């Protein structure tokens, strides 16, 4: 399995071909984003005289700076909250075998199957009553609750596969349950925490329809909403749109490529349990 044979070389070529297939759309994306709209040659031929004008224009017209700050705020705050409350909740849900614990866990898992359309209008009215509409805090609250089921599911699965000897020892040594959680359980949960961090960040950052509704009527936008506004019916300059798409994707890809090793390893590590 470890020797490099001619067959391995053939496999290498095949895999690189697959990677090129995956990369092809991204090439077109960048290729069109640096192209002036007067250039109407085929989308796959490299752009002759690349320009960055589209980027500056998209940045200004789309008010993408504000959208970026909002997306960042919403993502960071809600992911932090979700990880904190879910890991804490997973501890009793994974360890206590009493009936209330089982039942509660199943109730939480129900959240995985409920489509967002059911809750969207009543929640809109609740957020209105709280005066949160049109502010990023509406989204922080929303995602903090929405992502609980999936995150608890990840944590409980992982925790159940861990031995409880260490926590037991800590508790018998006189730790309070909270201390045992912080000093013993939480460190053991690190791999699954990275997984949950990645999955929640991607889900919250990329969500499109919730911010559309809860931020509508305000000047606040998140990145996907700003992008969708760009592709609105009468805005038709694809080179500009593609530049905006690149801008929206860049922060995520940048973080991803910088931290790819820990993200991929950690991501999968947590799922393995």
């Amino acid at each position, binding site marked *: *399995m470890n020797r490099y044979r001619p067959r*391995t070389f053939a496999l290498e070529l095949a*895999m690189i071909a*697959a*990677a090129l297939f*995956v990369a*092809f759309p991204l090439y*077109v*994306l960048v290729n069109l984003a640096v192209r002036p709209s007067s250039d109407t040659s*085929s*989308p*796959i031929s490299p752009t002759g005289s690349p320009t960055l004008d589209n980027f500056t224009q998209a940045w200004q017209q789309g008010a993408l700076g504000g959208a970026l700050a909002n997306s960042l705020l919403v993502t960071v705050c809600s992911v932090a909250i979700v990880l904190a*409350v879910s890991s*804490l*909740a997973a*501890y*009793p*849900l994974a360890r*206590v*075998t009493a009936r*209330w614990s*089982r039942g*509660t*866990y*199943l*109730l*939480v*898992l129900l959240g*995985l*199957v*409920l*489509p967002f*359309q*059911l*809750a*969207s209008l*009543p929640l809109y009215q609740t957020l209105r009553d709280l005066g949160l509409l049109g502010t990023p805090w509406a989204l922080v*609250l929303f995602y*903090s*609750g929405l992502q*609980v*089921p999936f995150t608890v*599911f990840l944590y409980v699965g992982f925790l*159940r596969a861990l031995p409880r000897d260490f926590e037991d020892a800590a*508790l018998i040594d006189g730790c309070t*349950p909270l201390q045992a959680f912080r000093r013993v359980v939480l460190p053991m949960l690190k791999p699954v925490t990275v997984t949950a961090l990645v999955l929640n960040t991607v889900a919250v*950052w990329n969500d*499109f329809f919730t911010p559309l509704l809860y931020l509508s009527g305000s000047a606040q936008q998140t*990145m996907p909403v700003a*992008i969708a506004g760009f592709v609105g019916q009468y805005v038709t300059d694809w080179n500009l*749109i*593609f530049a905006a798409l690149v801008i929206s*994707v860049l922060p*995520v890809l940048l973080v*991803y490529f910088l931290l790819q090793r820990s993200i*991929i390893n950690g991501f*999968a*590590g947590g*799922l*393995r349990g």
Partner: protein
Amino acid sequence: MTLAPNEHLPDRDRPPDPVPVTTARRDARTTPPWWFAAPALLLFAFVVLVPSARGVYYAFTDWDGLDPHYAFVGLGNFADMLRDADAMQAIWHTLLIAVSITVVQNGVGLLLALGVNTAIRSRNLLRVFLFAPAVVTPIVTAYLWRNLLGPDGAVNSLLGAVGLDSWEQDWLGDPDLALWAVVGVVVWQFAGYSMVIFLAGLQSVPKEVHEAAAMDGAGPVRRFWSVTRPLLAPALTINLMLSIIGGIKLFDQVYALTGGGPGHATDTLSTLIYKDAFTLGEFGYSIALAVVLTVIVAVASTGQYLLLSRNERAAS
């Protein structure tokens, strides 16, 4: 919904049996208190559970989403659904899309994982590149592909450039192709996601086991079947669950790629819910469709979970 009660987990994933000596003292002193779960439960109830329960009420009304006056119609909306050819077609499309995505995405993901988990030199780079589309906003990839799949778009240009003119298609405009184009875009984006999960499973197979099997004269296919496959079971469970729920609920991509068209050729339950609620002003009816969507997701995910956990137990 019974996703993961303890007894469905394979033996090695179950918490080890407690040491007998401490059993008596455990319940008294070492059980984590219930209130640890309170903050998460409160948030969950406030944001998901209570609003959903309140929302379900509209499924039994004829509310148009606007007029403060509306009537309670009992199961009328559900009866209407049976006569609504668009709704029936949308349910069929939803299932078709979910099943195809689940099969193709995981098939491709597994092949990629097997390919990357070899001695090839570019394996680390490939892993990074293949996973990259999964972190990109779906609505963004959909807008991108909408352009690429146009009659004069990059896909047809590429086919023309390599001499495959006859393969050029009106990908999103042909009702027989549009649905598969949507599936293709989703698979393109998430095959790397499945790959990474499978890869973690593959890497948990100790090298020695493989070598021992190879020494016993087992070929690669045989080694995969009897050594690797059983250990992939947990990864498979997670992968299938994620892709089946994601496939049934799929909305952003369909909305941005085809809007459900041409005609109703790619309408799914999610796009129909959206159209009925906000384009046609049939809010009550659209919530009834959402209830049906919930039931389908619940049945599908519970079913596949039960099935897989039985296999998982049998395999280990």
